[in-house]
């Protein structure tokens, strides 16, 4: 029993530089601000009691507790004020001011959006919600402001790494589950996915020109699966982390380039990589 507890402690409580949490905190704060901007034109349509989505109907889809802040302020004005407060909380979280309550506020807002309008959510909303909750219970590196984080060569205070490990696991599962699901789909298996994607409403340069590039897209379809499998593994191994970052950035820039309206998804996935950035690592010893 004691050995098991020691084992768990070594996984979760080993100490790391607090700047690593600060990087995630800053990136998450910025991403939540961007997501608020993304939601803004639709805020009344999606979250108010005069909008397109019924609150009671959304609550029926939720088998858990309905904790959405929009239930407390369902009018268009209430929704707008909630958005303004959430934006302020995200901005304060980014600069590390009153970081703990701001992290909780940002987590509550993120949860509220997916509970109130689950049918209008993208995968990135769930990534943000997961990360926001984990950050709310983790060290925040609040002593680091955005500018200091990149300028200072000093080592930060040492804090337990449990939050970072959980975020790293989350990135791992996002990529691997999506590959497992895709491998069961005929269009991913026969290599046609990317051609259809480019020709669809998601495609930035949609047109029949994609047919002439089908052989290239066929190879890129399979390459995408390999890259999605490889990214979390490469990110996890310190000596190969730069390759993981480079592949991930290339993949998500590619999605941003070929796709339209998907920049929030790409940016959110790249935000997750901040959980892997190790400030001040001097050695190539394996470890998180």
């Amino acid at each position, binding site marked *: 029993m004691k050995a098991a507890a020691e084992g768990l402690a070594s996984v979760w409580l080993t100490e790391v530089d607090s700047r690593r949490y600060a990087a995630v905190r800053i990136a998450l704060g910025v991403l939540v601000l961007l997501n608020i901007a993304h939601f803004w034109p639709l805020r009344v349509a999606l979250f108010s009691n005069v909008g397109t989505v019924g609150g009671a109907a959304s609550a029926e889809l939720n088998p858990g507790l309905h904790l959405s802040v929009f239930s407390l302020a369902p009018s268009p004005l209430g929704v707008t004020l909630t958005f303004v407060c959430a934006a302020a909380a995200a901005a304060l979280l980014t600069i590390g001011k009153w970081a703990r309550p701001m992290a909780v506020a940002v987590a509550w807002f993120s949860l509220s959006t997916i509970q109130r309008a689950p049918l209008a959510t993208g995968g990135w909303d769930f990534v943000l919600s997961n990360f926001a909750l984990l950050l709310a219970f983790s060290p925040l590196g609040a002593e680091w402001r955005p500018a200091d984080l990149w300028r200072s060569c000093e080592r930060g205070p040492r804090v337990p790494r449990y939050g970072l490990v959980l975020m790293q*696991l989350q990135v791992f599962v996002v990529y691997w589950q999506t590959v497992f699901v895709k491998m069961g789909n005929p269009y991913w298996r026969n290599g046609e996915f990317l051609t259809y994607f480019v020709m669809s409403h998601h495609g930035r340069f949609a047109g029949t020109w994609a047919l002439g590039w089908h052989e290239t897209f066929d190879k890129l379809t399979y390459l995408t699966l390999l890259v999605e499998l490889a990214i979390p593994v490469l990110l996890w191994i310190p000596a190969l982390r730069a390759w993981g970052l480079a592949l991930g950035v290339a993949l998500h820039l590619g999605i941003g380039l070929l796709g339209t309206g998907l920049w929030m998804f790409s940016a959110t996935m790249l935000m997750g990589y901040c959980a892997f950035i190790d400030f001040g690592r001097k050695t190539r010893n394996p470890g998180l």
Partner: protein
Amino acid sequence: MPRPRRAITLVFSSLCAANILAGLFPPGSATGDTLAGALAPARWTTGTWQRWEMFHSIPTLRHMEMHIVARDAGGGERIFGPLLPGFGEFEVEGEKRPYYLFTRMEFDPPDPTGAEYLRRVGEALRAEDPELVEFSVVADLGYIRHLAHIRKDGTLAKRVTETFGPYPLRDEGGR
């Protein structure tokens, strides 16, 4: 770290890790669906849902336009955008959230979100023009054709109009 906080941290982290790693069993698999069912209340309550099926299959649409077609007693038609309030419109290429919303909402037969939407549209139309007697939800869709068929004639998408309704706007039937 004080002992109680240390214990809470270890338990909390281990439970969170178990929830996240359960996501490695994908939706559609027997284990994945069993775990998702058991964990659903906790995941919905905390916002830690683990469904990462983005682009798990091909997008089927090249084009999508939604509108509300309302008619008066004389057969005259008025066309409105689908977003409430204000009957706003959206462009599927740039705005993904309305696209997600309307492709996930069920109208025939309506699911709870679809039924609530139809009720709200009815109310908004009655307020807009009391002369209107019924409305339909109309989706103009451009379905991408199979690659082999596109190669033959160069036509990328097949236009299909799906109409839901008509739904009466009189108080006794429109609700």
